[in-house]
Structure formats: structure tokens, C-alpha cells
């Protein structure tokens, strides 16, 4: 009897709540979905409306049903079983052992990937997958670079793509005007990007949190607008094309005499270059990872993390906050520059269109969704975001919409990112356990 009444009131409450949700959904959808304004072709630029009330009805019904179900079984019940999704990950994120296993598993997989693909799919079939893997690795590298700035030093940088652009344009312009090769330009691009990082960083690093974010965003946009409008130098919106490809210790990936295939006695195949690019970005990304992991153990890395947790305490302890921030900013920028020049050499063509704010947002999303400061998290997030994103290439229109929604959903579901357990950089005992990210304040150390 008692139970029946409770059940009843649960049902009534759920229906009421769902009706509210449906009402909101109707208000949202009635104009923006129900009516589509379109430009009539042929009758001047006259506007007309297209009615889509069925879509509104479906949206409202969907919201009602989903909310009702969630209310009945999860939200309003005290004995609610926890949502299925969280069951897939161990409590408190991935533990120490599983993270290690995952790390080495992924490393082996990454090394073997091109050959495994070639073996199963042949050179023609595997090409698009290796291309995708190169793209994912580029984002892994960018993510690791940004991780130094955002994850370790706790400086929110919304204009990271500016350094990516500086790297790409440095290589393209140096090759275009002076005919420098990729291997000379790679370090130069990194140095130039780091230099820009210092130039931009010096005045703005006094700012805190969100202000810093918005100024870096502004700088990112300034660099893009300049690239777009300085037609004589950068080619403006047309971009720069014919950027030289990298060579393998002087061996070009060309057909015939003196080429890579000829030298090693292989049959010429265009896939060689793709595989070379894959290993190139793989090594560059691993280098980024290596440097970051080493720096984390050095005084400068510890200062970054201390700075992220409490700037005032850092100053009180005599850490030079300006220099600490600047090194983080410059190093992050340098890796962005490396990745940029790789991007330029891979594409053979660059234009300002590749360096929009959206790109910064995606890189930042990878870092944050992976779990700030976590190197493995960046890899997982890159695979999920970029891989998933490219999978749905046919749904060109919808995939950005889904991308945005996924960013919100993952963040609400796991605010600390996918890998939310951290190994302390410094620990008294040799067998220190990873701690939950909830125990640290800003990032996760």
C-alpha cells in the first residue's frame, strides 16, 4: 500500500518533470526547427519559410520519453542503479597498473600499426587508415604540447593554434623564399614558434585565468587575420602551395634513380612516403612526450605544477613566476611549431583556413577531456575525438554538431577527464599510488 503510493507519486512527479522538459523543448524547437527560412532562387533574394512541424513533434516527444524514462529509473529513485556508462571505467579512473599496461600496449600498437595495416589491407586499402593515424598523432603531439601549458602550468591558452600556424608558415615561407629543406626548417620553426611564444607571453602572463585565455584567443585571431591579409608575403587566402616534401636522409620519395625505393631495392610505391610521415610524426610526438615527462621531474616542472596549484604560495617560496610561466609557454609553443611544420610538409599546401579558433578549441578539448596533465589521456581523447570525427565524414553537416554536444556531455559526465588518476611527480615513497584528481585543486598532480 505504502509502496504503491510512493510508486504513484514517483510516476506523477516524473510525468510532471518530463512535461516541463517537453515544454522547454517545444519552446526551443518551435521556431528554430519548425520553420526554416530559405532564400528563394530566381525570385530576387526573397525569403520564404519551410514548415517542419513533424520534426518539432519528434523532438518534443523524444525529450518527453527520454526524460520520463530517466526520471522513472534513475534520477528520482533513491535506489537507482548507477548509470551503465561509468561501469566501463574502474572507480577513480584508471589505476596505476592498468595505465602502464595501456601505455605500453598503445606504444606497441602504434609502432606496429602501418605494417599490420599493410599486411591485412594491402598498400592501397591501408592508405586512408595510415593517413588517419597520422592525423591522430598530429593531434596527440599538439595535445602534449598544449598539456605543458594548460595541464602542467595551469595557464589557459585558447590561441595555441597561432603557434601551430607560426610553425607551418615558417617552414613554408623559408622553403619558398630561401629553398631551405624540411630538416633545417624543423628546428627553426620550433625556435621561431618558441620565440613568438615568449613575445606574446611576456606581456600577458601577468594576467590570471580567464583573462589570459581571452588574450591568447585574441592573439590567435590577430595572427590569422594578418596571415589572411598580408597578401604579398603569405599569399593571403590563397595560401602557399608546393611546399617541399621531407626526404629520408637525403633520399627523396620519388620514382626512379636515387629515390628511396631505388636505394633500398624496393619496388616504388607511394605508400612509402606515407609510412615515413607516420613514423616521423610518431617520433616527434614521442619526443614531445619524453621531454615533458623528464621536465616534470626537474625543478622547472615541479615549479609549473606548484604554480598551477597556488601562485601566491609559489611567490612566497621564491619561485620566479614570470620565468616559470614563460618557459612553459615557450616550450608549449615550440612543440606547436614542430607540429605545424610537420603539418605543412604533409599537406604540401597551407592557408589561414587551417588555423581557425576551432582548431585551438579542438586541441584544448583533447587536453581537458583526456584529463589535464595526463599524457595517456591525451592519446585516448585524440583517438576518440579525431578518429570518431573522421569516421563520420559522410555526415559532414552533423558531425560538428555532435562534436560540440560530445564535448559538453563528456565534460558533464567526467569533469576531470577520461583519465582522472594521477601519479604524483614527486613522492616520498618509491611505490606511491596514483591519486584521484578530485584531491587536487586545479589540475591534477
Amino acid at each position, binding site marked *: 500500500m505504502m509502496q504503491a503510493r510512493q510508486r504513484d507519486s514517483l510516476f506523477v512527479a516524473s510525468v510532471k518533470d518530463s512535461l516541463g522538459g517537453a515544454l*522547454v523543448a517545444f*519552446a*526551443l524547437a518551435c*521556431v*528554430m526547427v519548425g*520553420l*526554416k*527560412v*530559405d*532564400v528563394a532562387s530566381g525570385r530576387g*533574394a526573397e*525569403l*520564404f*519559410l519551410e514548415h517542419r512541424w513533424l520534426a518539432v513533434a519528434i523532438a518534443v516527444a523524444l525529450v518527453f520519453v527520454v526524460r520520463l524514462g530517466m526520471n522513472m529509473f534513475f534520477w528520482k529513485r533513491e535506489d537507482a542503479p548507477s548509470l551503465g556508462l561509468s561501469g566501463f571505467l574502474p572507480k577513480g579512473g584508471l589505476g596505476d597498473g592498468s595505465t602502464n599496461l595501456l601505455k605500453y600496449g598503445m606504444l606497441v600498437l602504434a609502432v606496429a600499426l602501418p605494417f599490420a595495416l599493410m599486411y591485412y589491407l594491402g598498400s592501397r586499402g591501408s592508405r586512408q587508415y595510415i593517413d588517419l593515424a597520422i592525423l591522430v598523432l598530429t593531434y596527440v603531439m599538439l595535445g602534449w604540447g598544449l598539456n605543458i601549458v*594548460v595541464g602542467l602550468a595551469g595557464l*589557459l591558452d585558447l590561441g595555441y593554434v597561432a603557434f601551430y600556424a607560426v610553425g607551418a608558415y615558417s617552414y613554408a615561407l623559408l622553403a619558398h623564399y630561401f629553398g631551405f629543406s624540411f630538416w633545417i626548417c624543423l628546428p627553426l620553426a620550433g625556435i621561431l614558434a618558441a620565440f613568438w611564444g615568449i613575445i606574446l607571453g611576456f*606581456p*600577458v602572463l*601577468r*594576467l590570471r*585565468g*580567464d*583573462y589570459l*585565455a*581571452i*588574450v591568447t*584567443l*585574441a*592573439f590567435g*585571431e*590577430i595572427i590569422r*587575420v*594578418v596571415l*589572411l*591579409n598580408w597578401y604579398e608575403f603569405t599569399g593571403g587566402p590563397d595560401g602557399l602551395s608546393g611546399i617541399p616534401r621531407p626526404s629520408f636522409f637525403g633520399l627523396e620519395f620519388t620514382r626512379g634513380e636515387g629515390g628511396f625505393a631505388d636505394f633500398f631495392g624496393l619496388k616504388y610505391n607511394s605508400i612509402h612516403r606515407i609510412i615515413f610521415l607516420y613514423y616521423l610524426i610518431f617520433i616527434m610526438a614521442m619526443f614531445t612526450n619524453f621531454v615533458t615527462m623528464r621536465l616534470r621531474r626537474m625543478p622547472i616542472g615541479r615549479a609549473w605544477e606548484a604554480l598551477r596549484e597556488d601562485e*601566491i604560495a609559489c611567490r612566497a617560496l621564491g619561485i620566479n613566476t614570470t620565468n616559470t610561466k614563460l618557459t612553459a609557454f615557450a616550450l608549449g609553443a615550440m612543440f606547436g611549431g614542430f607540429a605545424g611544420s610537420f603539418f605543412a610538409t604533409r599537406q604540401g599546401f597551407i592557408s589561414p583556413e587551417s588555423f581557425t*579558433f*576551432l582548431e585551438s*578549441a579542438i586541441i*584544448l*578539448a583533447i587536453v*581537458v*577531456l583526456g584529463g*589535464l596533465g595526463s599524457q595517456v589521456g591525451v592519446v585516448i581523447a585524440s583517438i576518440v575525438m579525431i578518429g570518431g570525427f573522421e569516421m563520420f565524414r559522410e555526415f559532414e*553537416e*552533423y558531425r*560538428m*554538431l555532435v*562534436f*560540440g*554536444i*560530445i*564535448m*559538453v556531455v563528456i*565534460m*558533464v559526465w567526467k*569533469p*576531470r577527464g577520461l583519465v582522472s588518476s594521477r601519479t604524483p611527480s614527486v613522492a616520498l615513497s618509491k611505490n606511491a599510488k596514483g591519486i584521484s584528481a578530485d584531491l587536487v585543486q*586545479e*589540475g591534477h598532480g
Partner: protein
Amino acid sequence: MDYFLQQLINGVTLGSIYGLIAIGYTMVYGIIGMINFAHGDIFMVGSFISLILIVALGITAATPVLLLILALALVLVVAMALTAVWGWTVERVAYRPLRGSFRLAPLITAIGASIALQNFVQVSQGAKNKPLQPLISGDFQLTDGGADGSGFIVNLSYMQILIVVTTVVLMAGFTYIINKTSLGRSQRACEQDRKMAALLGVNVDRTISLTFVMGASLAAVAGLMFLLYYGVVDFYIGFLAGVKAFTAAVLGGIGSLPGAMLGGLLIGLIETFWSGYFSVEYKDVAAFSILAIVLIFMPEGLLGQPEVEKV
């Protein structure tokens, strides 16, 4: 001189629109200390809702004046209400679950919400520009261009007057709400200390929601004005307008309503004068540089209060 006057008029008009959007940023930042990155896109949604309503009601330039005013007022009210629902939903879905989380979390969801909104509009309304024939035409000629007609004719259009007057009226209304009503009092209380306000019986969640509702409805007004003034919208207008309005909010001193309006006016003027006297291509660079310079040398803005860092 005449050219200067014309640029001044245009700048004030543009500045009013930026100011209206900037209020949304400044109020939200003041109360929960986050950059509502999706606000520019809320403005864009408001603009689209206005456009659809205008087409649905069949308003054209041929509509009789009295009817035109009534119809536009109706469009304004409905668009404000519907856009407010959008603002409320974004807060409810993307920000409220993360309250009390670390500070980057809501910024990421805000960026996600911004991307989602932009692409939702692209999917539901198409990617094409939507041009609207001018509804309100006619102007005052302030100078006659000299006796031989060789001088510069300064125009003050009815539209520009409408925009500035609407902005002033709304600003007065919102200043009243913030300073005199109990809602405004709770908003100011939450701004000072959210925990203490909650202990004293202020419904913090409700106050924050209402702040988003107010910001979104003002963005809807700005959206309608933008639509009527420029006569064209697309799904991408939110980003740039949003960044500039945020610049305006920071320039004026974030958290301060008159500051947002003043900042909006200044950004509008800087942008118009820069385009008028230097180069149109680099007008965005000018606006962004101002942002950087202000933040570096005067982080509290023109009318803001310096932030005291407490340990």
C-alpha cells in the same frame, strides 16, 4: 569634419549593439566568474529567431508604419522570450552540473555549447547567408553637402535612431532591475559572495538562471537590431560579435553594467574609425589589440573594481 560626424554616428550605432551583447557577458562573469563562451551564439540564435518571425509575420517595407511598429514590437518580445529559453537551457545543461568543479570545466562546456549551437543552426537553417530587405528606410540629412553638392552628406537613418533609443531604454530598464528590485539585490548578493547569499536565503541557482535569461534576452534584442541594421545573418556571426562584445565588457570593466555599455560604445567607435581612416581588413586586429592592451595595462577595465587577491 562631416566624414568624422558620419563615422561617429555609425560607431555609436555599432557600439550600442556590442554593448547589448556585452551586458550578457559582464553579468554572467560578475555572478559566476566564467566566460559564457556560447553567448555570442545565443545572440546569433536570437537574430535567426527574429528573422524567421519577421518572414512568418510577412513584414515588409510596404507594411503601414503603425502596423510595422506593432509587428516589430511583437517580434522583439517573442524573440526575447524564445532566446531567453535558449540561454536558460544552455545554463541548465552545460554549466549548472559543473558548478563547484574546477574552473576550466565550464569553459570547455561553454566552447562545446558554442560549437553545438553554431552547427545546430547551420544544420537546421542552412549555411547560406539570409539577406533581408530593409524594413525601415529613410533618414535625416544632417549636412547638405555644400552649395555645389561636392561635400560629404551626413546621414542619420531612422534605423540608427531606433537602435540607439532602444538600447538606452533597455539599459535604463536593466539598471533599474539591478539596483532597485529584489532580483537585482539577489544578483548583487550572489556576485559578492555566493555561499553567504545562499546561507541568507537567496536561491542562488534561480538567480543565476535568471541572469542567463536576462543576458540572452538582451542578446536577442541585439540580434534583431543587427538583422535590421545589416540586413543579413548567417550562422557564423556569433563568434566575432561575441569576441568583440567580450572585449567591450573587459574594456569597460567586467562585472559593471555601465562599463559594458561604455566599452561597447568605445569598441564600436574604434572599429568604425579604424575602418574609416585606416584599413577595413585590419579592423578586427584593432579591436583585439585594444583588448590585449587594456588587459595588460588596466586589467580592471575603465569602470571596474580592482580585484583583491585573497589567500
